């Protein structure tokens, strides 16, 4: 692949950042941010129960494990998602015995991925999702699938340095909608968007919602 062709995120609108930066910046003080992490490599691993994959990987359905360069989450029975760099994901896969009924599918382009971080992150989520985000029902590491603002999402609680943080993945085509829906829900808590550096090849487009004309 030519070097000048960069990955384009589904979040293409630009948002004025209060800190003066063009794309906002992640903060680590407990204040609320929504970061676009869509460029993260996402690898789906699916394996039948008769294979040794489940025991080798050691992550059950509904849970996750964070390794230095990759997060492994059991997002459905017999199905895991790896979130990391392409190389780190591959390293995990290469360490498995893939014999038997095992599928490895690159989902990098299929899913938008956002990270909602901050002390109020659960308060934002409970405005758009009906799951119980309490520490007993959804502790750090828990993973679940649910409707978020009417879009089915995979959600992983992955706290950062003791601050609540959730990874939220949805179909790429819903990415811009969902990013805006979560921003809207987080407005009362002072949420800050953090977007990816845009590709140099992509022309800027006018921000603002775009709707088809009435029929």
């Amino acid at each position, binding site marked *: 692949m030519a070097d000048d062709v960069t990955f384009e995120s589904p979040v293409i609108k630009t948002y004025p950042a209060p800190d003066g930066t063009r794309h906002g910046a992640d903060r680590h003080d407990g204040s609320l941010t929504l970061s676009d992490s869509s460029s993260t490599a996402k690898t789906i691993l699916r394996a039948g129960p008769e294979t040794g994959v489940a025991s080798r990987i050691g992550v059950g*359905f*509904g849970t996750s494990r964070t390794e230095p360069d990759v997060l492994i989450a059991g997002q*459905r*029975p017999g199905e895991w998602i790896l979130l990391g760099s392409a190389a780190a994901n591959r390293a995990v896969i290469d360490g498995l015995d893939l014999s038997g009924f095992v599928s490895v599918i690159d989902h990098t382009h299929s899913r938008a991925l956002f990270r909602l971080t901050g002390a109020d992150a659960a308060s934002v989520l409970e405005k758009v999702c*009906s799951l119980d985000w309490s520490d007993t029902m959804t502790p750090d590491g828990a993973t*679940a*699938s*649910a*409707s978020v603002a009417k879009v*089915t999402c995979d959600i992983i609680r992955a706290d950062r340095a003791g601050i609540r943080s959730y990874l939220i993945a949805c179909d790429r085509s819903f990415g811009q909608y969902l990013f805006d829906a979560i921003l809207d829900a987080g407005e009362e808590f002072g949420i800050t968007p953090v977007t990816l550096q845009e590709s140099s090849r992509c022309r800027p487009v006018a921000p603002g919602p775009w709707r088809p004309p009435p029929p």
Partner: protein
Amino acid sequence: MLLVPCPNCGPRNAADLHYVGETGARPDPGTATPEEWRHYLYLKGNRAGLLRETWYCRSGCRRYFVLERDTTTNQFADPPLPGPEIEGKT
């Protein structure tokens, strides 16, 4: 809203699932008579009492499963929460 005991995810709101319908055997397509096949397609028992039903956990684990529910009380055979009828017993 009913809390449905998904065997994989745990209890979920009914809106998270798709109600497929009463669970029944599919007739052999090679030998089924029109009466048998259309009974399978269209006729439901709609029993008052315990009923076996198929659900699909659309927002969660994406698995199909069968649950037993009492259609007169809306209670699942193994309810996720103690129901209103169960005084003092949890």
